[in-house]
């Protein structure tokens, strides 16, 4: 492949691979906590960090990391205090982040709109080897921490009150999740861009939710989708000469639309098959119940009614074949 002859493309593809793995891993916990937009907000705050780096001549990746992790920890502390206006406080922090970033970058000698755009929407040519090393280290931290603590992160994301009652360190785990999300935002800042990273955290999980039967499979599926669309989008971006982040996100959303359509069609066909032809449809006008004349067979916590060679069980207003 010709694109691998270019150093910048090799770096971009490796960075895309790291984002593709880490973003869905963090995203599944954000989705489970109903905090899907936190990644978006942290991306806003990261822009201020980038701007500080640009203005002071420091590596923007480092300043973005510091700024975003601090914001992530502040978010959890604000949430933990449970103030009624916590979401307003967070919104102010996020707006302040992006506004501060834009103003600071405009004051810098390197502050061009093209420069800003590459941070916001991703660019293929900006990932340096130094960046790549930092991203790899951050990705290793994210993956080791999420793997080691997966059961606890699952518990605290799924039912925070139960986790608290069980004596788990809920605030500590939430702060860790938040800080790891911040690290993932930083990993994404070159290829996907700060305004779009949230999409790569959330949309692969949205696709996985449509088809996965369990949390574990949903996570594995989301990682597969994340890696495929991030690297695939990077390749498309190279040939189509489009911003990489936006291309990756459009590819992921296209996949979501396709799978959602497929699942919708499958469910429609399944429902029609389940309810059978007209003859069986007429039969279902009969309402099963005690003394209805059909043989009953206990099945777990309910009764199946033997009906025309099938075992029917009441389920949400219709009968399932068991």
């Amino acid at each position, binding site marked *: 492949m010709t694109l691998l002859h270019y150093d910048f493309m090799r770096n971009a593809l490796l960075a895309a691979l790291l984002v593709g793995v880490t973003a869905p891993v963090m995203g599944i916990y954000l989705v489970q906590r109903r905090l899907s937009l936190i990644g978006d907000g942290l991306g806003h705050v990261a822009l201020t960090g980038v701007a500080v780096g640009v203005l002071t001549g420091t590596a923007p990746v480092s300043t973005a990391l510091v700024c975003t992790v601090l914001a992530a920890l502040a978010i959890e502390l604000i949430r933990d205090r449970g103030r009624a206006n916590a979401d307003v406080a967070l919104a102010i922090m996020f707006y302040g982040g992006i506004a501060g970033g834009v103003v600071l970058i405009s004051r810098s000698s390197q502050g061009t709109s093209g420069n800003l755009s590459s941070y916001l929407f991703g660019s293929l040519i900006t990932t340096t080897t130094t960046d790549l090393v930092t991203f790899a280290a951050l990705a290793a931290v994210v993956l080791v921490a999420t793997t080691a603590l997966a059961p606890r992160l699952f518990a605290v994301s799924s*039912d925070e*009150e139960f986790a608290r009652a069980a004596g788990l360190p809920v605030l500590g785990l939430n702060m860790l999740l938040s800080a790891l999300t911040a690290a993932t935002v930083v990993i994404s800042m070159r290829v996907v861009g700060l305004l779009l990273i949230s999409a790569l955290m959330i949309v692969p999980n949205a696709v996985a939710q449509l088809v996965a039967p*369990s949390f*574990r499979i949903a996570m594995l599926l989301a990682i597969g989708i994340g890696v495929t669309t991030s690297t695939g989008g990077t390749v498309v971006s190279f040939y189509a000469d489009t911003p990489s982040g936006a291309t990756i996100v459009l590819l992921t959303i296209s996949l979501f639309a396709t799978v959602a359509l497929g699942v919708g069609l499958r469910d429609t066909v399944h429902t029609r098959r389940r309810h059978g032809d007209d003859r069986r449809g007429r039969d279902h006008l009969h309402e099963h119940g005690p003394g209805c004349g059909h043989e009953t067979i206990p099945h777990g*916590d309910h009764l199946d009614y033997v009906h025309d060679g099938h075992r029917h069980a009441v389920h949400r207003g219709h009968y399932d074949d068991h």
Partner: protein
Amino acid sequence: MSVSHTRPARSDRRGQPTPVAGPDEPTAAAVFPPGELADPPREEADPPDEEDGAAGRADSLPGRVNSTPEQLDSVPGRPDGALPTPVLRLAGASFGYGDRRIVQRISLRVLPGEVVALVGPNGAGKSTLLRGVLGLARLLEGEQFWFGTPARAFTDRYRVGYVPQRYNLAGGVPVTVREVVASGRLNRRRTPWPLSPSARRAERLAVDEAIAATGLTDQARTPAHLLSGGQQRRMLVSRALAGGPEVLLMDEPTAGVDPAHRHLLVESLDALVSAGLTLVVVTHELEALDRLHPRVVRLEAGHLRGEEAGR
């Protein structure tokens, strides 16, 4: 005023498990032998608790409410005047949120093997009391002890199981019954993951047993959001059982559950109580718990108003 009755001692029923739901649904007593449910084994009669202060004086009924702490500490007629260490003891405890007191100056004692039903009108503070003893609402005054240890210093959280009123379906990622129940095992772990094969096996077995105890074995791989309300409630009981608790605290376990599933749930609980589990249940539907013979503790406007034992 308190009404005193002698309720059947739950310990009398140990070793005589009631079938749970049918031949394919093992009883809780079968899957949780008394020794496991009561692990670590309780002492029959503890010396007076140091922190109890007046423990050991024989002038009142155990678990009696609206009594001073001094009145709460012994059993008339017991020659040694000693009691088993209460699973839970509250002495003048007030709970609330922020500085706002919702339940006030509660003195209550729950003994091993008891079934206690907390009843009262909406807004009486039942759920706050339950949440308070779990550490989900603030203890604003008074004292609380788990198994004789001040709640602040109590670290064996696996001994206390919590069954919330509803399963929080969270963000919609599919989660199987088994995954939910396994999360109840976490406070038993000393390492993030069970490291040895035997530890992994023991963990799997404990989760399987907790699922079987509520008759959900056939649904173990079913996504939780596809379960009925009654099945979800039983799943939450299983999650609480996975850590091998000695006491279950339940918030409205039968609310919104259809009669068939309610029957299954209460049967499961009956088998668990027969195996030695202690239950504290907040409920509006006392009649649903009749077969558990609960000691009824009534709250009104944040205060205990009396109790009756052994319905």
